[in-house]
């Protein structure tokens, strides 16, 4: 039997256990679209709420005319908005793949996307932290002056300690973890791509 095994005949005998109802597939496609939209709205919602909160806080509860406070608040908002734009880009077209292309092109596309994500992610997180830190530092100048030398110093010591902790400890750890995941995926994609390159070399 082994010399002439009819693999095609054996292959075709594999029956589908359960074929899902077509309506389920269509419904799921709709749900996916909705959940992507909700995710987007959710992310935007949080950032818009924070921005509105800042504006209200600046204008109503904390009525300061100090330019540093204004610039600080503005910087923080700019950071948030930049983060919003990029994270929306991550969810939308910028990193969309095209599964209808051939596998060789698709794998190359996936690798480029992952590398782009890696680069953008670390740059955006760092930029966000820098604008946020600078924004808060500027924002606090006026209240710190009003609070007096001692309390003002305490405020800034805590602020810088916290920023240093976030910038040098939390952020690098998070970025490293995310990048390790992406690198593992890139490595695997590369390995499959190498299989294709090896076959191409056969000619």
């Amino acid at each position, binding site marked *: *039997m*082994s*010399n002439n*095994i009819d*693999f*095609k005949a*054996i*292959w*075709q*005998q*594999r*029956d*589908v*256990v*359960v*074929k*899902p109802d*077509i309506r389920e*597939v*269509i419904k*799921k*496609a709709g749900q*996916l*679209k909705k959940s992507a939209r909700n995710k987007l709205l959710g992310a935007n919602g949080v950032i818009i709420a924070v921005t509105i909160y800042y504006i209200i806080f600046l204008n109503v509860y904390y009525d300061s005319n100090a330019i540093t406070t204004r610039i600080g608040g503005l910087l923080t908002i700019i950071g948030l908005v930049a983060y919003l734009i990029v994270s929306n880009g991550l969810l939308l077209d910028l990193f969309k793949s095209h*599964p*209808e*292309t*051939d*596998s*060789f*092109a*698709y*794998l190359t596309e*996936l690798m480029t996307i992952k590398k782009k994500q890696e680069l953008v992610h670390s740059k955006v997180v760092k930029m966000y932290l820098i604008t946020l830190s600078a924004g808060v530092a500027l924002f606090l100048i006026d209240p710190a002056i009003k609070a007096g030398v001692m309390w003002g110093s305490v405020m800034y010591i805590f602020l810088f300690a916290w920023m240093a902790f976030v910038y040098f400890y939390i952020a690098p750890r998070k970025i490293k973890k995310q990048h390790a995941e992406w690198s*593992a*995926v890139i490595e*695997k*994609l590369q390995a*499959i791509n190498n*299989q*294709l390159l090896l*076959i*191409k070399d*056969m*000619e």
Partner: protein
Amino acid sequence: MSFQEIYDTYYSKIFRLCMGYMNDDAWAQDVAQETFITVWQKLAQFRNESAIGTWIFRIASNHCLRQLEKQNRMPRAEMPVQLEDKPLPDTESQVRLLYKCIAELPEIDRIIISLELEDVKQAEIASIVGLSETNIRVKVYRIKEKLSQKFKKYEQQY
């Protein structure tokens, strides 16, 4: 071709392709479903540049390849060649054996042989995977040889 017709014509074929890649019923079903969701979403963009079958098989193959991101479900391909402790020749276990042997091949080989066994023309396989027809012809021959050896090895065990 309407989505309904596509679904009815291709579901079994796509499911088998996914089974060849993953050798796991539930997982293959998930990926087959993901494939048809993409087909549903992109059908309006289909421009007849290739045959509809080629287009659907491309989407399915790429969804299979993408599964590497779900790493913890992946170890099947690295499993040893050791097979079940059951005597073979009934048809059911031959089917299981074939799918198991295929799932142990490298990823691209799995896709190529699954498409070949699904009776997809080699020119079409070439355009699905992104290789030349000559590449596919040589590769199919070698994979079949490898599969036969695996079968033989199994037979010798019993």
